[in-house]
């Protein structure tokens, strides 16, 4: 048992040691490659600075600016044209849309006005019919009332007329008729009512 443990430990130590050695060698190789690439970069940068010096850069800047300005000018012109065209189209479109919308709204408005007008006419017609009916009814009632009032006034007039004439006659001839002239009239009246008088006298109070 101890042997096996010993062997395992020895193998483990061996592997660990081998791994550490391999890792150190690898790190060393990477360090060498890094130093070599640093040298290339430095050389490249130096060359670039030599080719693309300040004068060249200034020239490139000027050319680029001019080209950029040219492109911007062309694009601005195109943009302006497009903008004008778009504006014109937009105007036409807006005009058409607004006209159509206005026409639609005007048509609706006109229809509403026509409906309201028709309603008003119907209402006025109904009112006229009702007023006419009321007028006829009132006229009939008034005629009836007038006829009644006329009849009443006529009767009252006749009554008053006879009363006035009778009163006048009584006042005019009342004291002109001698009692002796009335004797026969009085006696004939009593004779006519003789039976009723006798019955009342015999009946007593």
């Amino acid at each position: 048992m101890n042997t096996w443990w010993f062997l395992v430990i020895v193998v483990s130590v061996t592997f660990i040691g081998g791994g550490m050695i391999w890792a150190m060698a690898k790190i060393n190789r990477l360090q060498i490659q890094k130093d070599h690439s640093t040298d290339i970069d430095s050389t490249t940068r130096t060359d670039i600075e030599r080719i693309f010096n300040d004068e060249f850069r200034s020239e490139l800047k000027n050319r680029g600016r001019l080209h950029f300005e040219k492109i911007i000018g062309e694009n601005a012109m195109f943009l302006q044209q497009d903008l004008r065209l778009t504006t014109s189209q937009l105007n036409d479109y807006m005009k058409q849309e607004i006209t159509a919308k206005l026409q639609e709204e005007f048509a609706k408005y006109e229809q509403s006005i026509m409906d309201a007008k028709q309603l008003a006419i119907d209402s006025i017609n109904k009112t006229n019919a009702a007023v006419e009916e009321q007028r006829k009814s009132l006229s009939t009632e008034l005629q009836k009332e007038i006829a009644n009032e006329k009849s009443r006034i006529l009767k009252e007039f006749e009554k008053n007329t006879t009363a006035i004439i009778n009163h006048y006659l009584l006042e005019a001839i009342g004291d002109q008729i001698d009692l002796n002239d009335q004797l026969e009239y009085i006696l004939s009246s009593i004779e006519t009512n003789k039976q009723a008088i006798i019955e009342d006298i015999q009946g007593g109070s």
Partner: protein
Amino acid sequence: MGPKKEKTVLNLPMQVISPADVSRLSRELESLEDFMEQSAIRTKGVGLKLPASSKLLDELAASNSFNFLHIQDRKLAKEFLGTLTKTAPVIHLSFASDPSAAFLSKLVSRLRDIIHPQLLVRTGLEPSIAAGCILRTNNRQFDFSLRTTLYAKSDLLMKALKLNSEGQT
């Protein structure tokens, strides 16, 4: 002329018209009776003067052949007047003007023929009736006035007025 022994139905003079006349006669007869009683107890040979009798009393005596010096006749007359006061039918007549005595006498005479022989009449004034009369009994009123006749015949007047107005138009 001796006193009447049997006097069942006596005549009422036409001048006796109203219950007031009957009362007046009764009072007068009573006075006469008092006088006669007083004269009976007075000394004989003293002159007596009878009280003056009214025309009504004279008429009563004349129409029934009474001699009021006889006590029997006075008694009969008194009983007659008492009966009249109690039982005689009375009517009331209203005229437009005050009737004269002659008119009343004629009227009462006819009424006693028509209605009752002992009828008594009270009279009154009703100027608004113009002519005719209003007769009232105990329970009823009979209007024979011109006023009522005119009002009752107002229709005739109106017809006449209408005919006249139509003729003019």
